[in-house]
C-alpha cells in the first residue's frame, strides 16, 4: 500500500470506529492540493498525499468550526507533527482531542496520538529539513552591512498589503485578538506601508521565536512573495544556538520565550 492508500484506509477506519469525528487531510482539485474535511468514511477516497501538500493543516485546529468536530485526526507530515507537539505544549490541544496520521517524505507511520507523534519526530525528524538555498540566502544576508540589510527588507516589506495570509496559515498564530489589531493603544500601524509593515513582520517573527517549526506555510501563503522564512530561520537558529531549543520535540516542553535558565548567555549585556 502506498502512503495515499494507507491514509485513506486509516481515515475511513477512524471515522467508522468513531475514534475521530472529522479527518482533516489533503485532497486534489484541478491538480492543486487542497484541504479536505471528512466526516464520513465513504469520502476517504478523496484523500491524497504527495509533495505538493505544503499547507500545515494544524492551522485549522484553532478554528471553532473545526473544533466542534473533536475528536479530530489530521494528516501530518513532519512539520505538522511538530506543530501538533508545540500546540500540545501550549495547552491548545486538549488531551486526546487530536490524532495524527503521521507521514514522512516517503513513509507512513500510522495513526498516533500527540505523545507518539513527538516520539516519531524525535526519532526521525529531530531537525527540520532546511532548504539549502534558504540557508544560503540567510547567510548571505547575515554577511551584509546593516545598511544593506535595511535596504533589502525595506524593499521586501514594502510589498506587504497586510492581508495577514501569513498569520492565517500559521498554526502558531492562534491568538483570539492579534496585537496587530488592538487599538487601545495602537501598537502596530495598520497602514500597509513603512513602519507598520516593519513592525508587523518583526512582531510576527518574534512571536514565533521558539515556537516556529519552519513548516514554511506563512511564506507559501504570502501572495506578494515576501521571504518570511528568512526571518523564521534566522530566529530559529538563534533560539537553538542560544537555548538549545528545538520546538516540536516535547509536548511537555516549557515555552522557550516564557522560561529561562540562570546561566543563559548575557554577553550582549553590559
Amino acid at each position, binding site marked *: 500500500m502506498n502512503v495515499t492508500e494507507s491514509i485513506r484506509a486509516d481515515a475511513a477506519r477512524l471515522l467508522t470506529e468513531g475514534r475521530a469525528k472529522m479527518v482533516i487531510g489533503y485532497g486534489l482539485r484541478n491538480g492543486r492540493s487542497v484541504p479536505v474535511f471528512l466526516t464520513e468514511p465513504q469520502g476517504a477516497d478523496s484523500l491524497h498525499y504527495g509533495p505538493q501538500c505544503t499547507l500545515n493543516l494544524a492551522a485549522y485546529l484553532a478554528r471553532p468550526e473545526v473544533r466542534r468536530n473533536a475528536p479530530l485526526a489530521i494528516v501530518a507530515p513532519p512539520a505538522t507533527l511538530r506543530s501538533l507537539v508545540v500546540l500540545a505544549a501550549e495547552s491548545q490541544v486538549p488531551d486526546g482531542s487530536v490524532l495524527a496520521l503521521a507521514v514522512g517524505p516517503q513513509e507512513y507511520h500510522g495513526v498516533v496520538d500527540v505523545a507518539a507523534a513527538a516520539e516519531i519526530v524525535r526519532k526521525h525528524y529531530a531537525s527540520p529539513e532546511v532548504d539549502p538555498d534558504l540557508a544560503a540566502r540567510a547567510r548571505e544576508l547575515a554577511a551584509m552591512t546593516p545598511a544593506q540589510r535595511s535596504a533589502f527588507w525595506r524593499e521586501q516589506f514594502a510589498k506587504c498589503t497586510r492581508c495577514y495570509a501569513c498569520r492565517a496559515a500559521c498554526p502558531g498564530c492562534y491568538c483570539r485578538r492579534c496585537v496587530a489589531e488592538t487599538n487601545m493603544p495602537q501598537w502596530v500601524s495598520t497602514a500597509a506601508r513603512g513602519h507598520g509593515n516593519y513592525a508587523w513582520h*518583526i*512582531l510576527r517573527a*518574534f512571536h514565533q521565536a521558539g515556537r516556529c517549526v519552519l513548516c514554511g506555510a506563512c511564506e507559501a501563503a504570502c501572495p506578494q512573495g515576501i521571504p518570511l522564512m528568512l*526571518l523564521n530561520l534566522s530566529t530559529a537558529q*538563534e533560539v537553538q544556538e542560544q537555548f538549545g531549543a528545538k520546538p516540536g520535540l516535547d509536548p511537555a516542553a516549557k515555552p522557550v520565550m516564557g522560561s*529561562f535558565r*540562570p546561566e*543563559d548567555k548575557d554577553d550582549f549585556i553590559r
Partner: protein
Amino acid sequence: MEQTKANKNTTRDATGETFEPRIVAFVCNWCTYAGADLAGTSRMQYAPNVRIIKLPCTGRIDPLFILKAFEGGADAVLVSGCHPGDCHYTSGNYHARRRWAVFHKLLDFTGIDPGRLHFSWVSAAEGRKFADLINDITERVRGLGPFASDNPARRQA
C-alpha cells in the same frame, strides 16, 4: 574610534544641523532608575541625550516599546535593569534577557545597526556605571550618525 573622537560634536545630519543623538532608555524602577537617580543626586555629569522611561521591571519591557521608539525617531535605545539574581520580582530580568537575546538579533538581521540597541545591568548603587554608559552610548551613536530616515523601522513622513 579615533575617527569617532575626531567627529565629536561635529557630526551633522542631512540638513546640515549639528547632530545630537536621541536615546530612549527603558529602565526598571528598582535598579537602573535608582542608579540613574544616584548619578543625578551625586552630580555626575552625563550626556543630556537620554530620555528615561521607567517601568516596573525589565520583564515589562515589551519589544514593541523598542520598535515604537525607533519608529518615533530614536537614534538608539537602551534597555536596562537589575543584575541577574537581583530582580525585585525574582525573575523578571531573566525572562527579559531571553527575549532580548533573540530580539536584538532579529533587529540586527532586519537592518538595525547593533550599535543602536544596547542592554545593560545597572544596580541602584551603580550611578557611575549609568553615567559612563550613557556617555559611551551617546558617543558611539554620534559616530554612527542619525538613524536613517529610510530605515523601514522609522516612521516615514
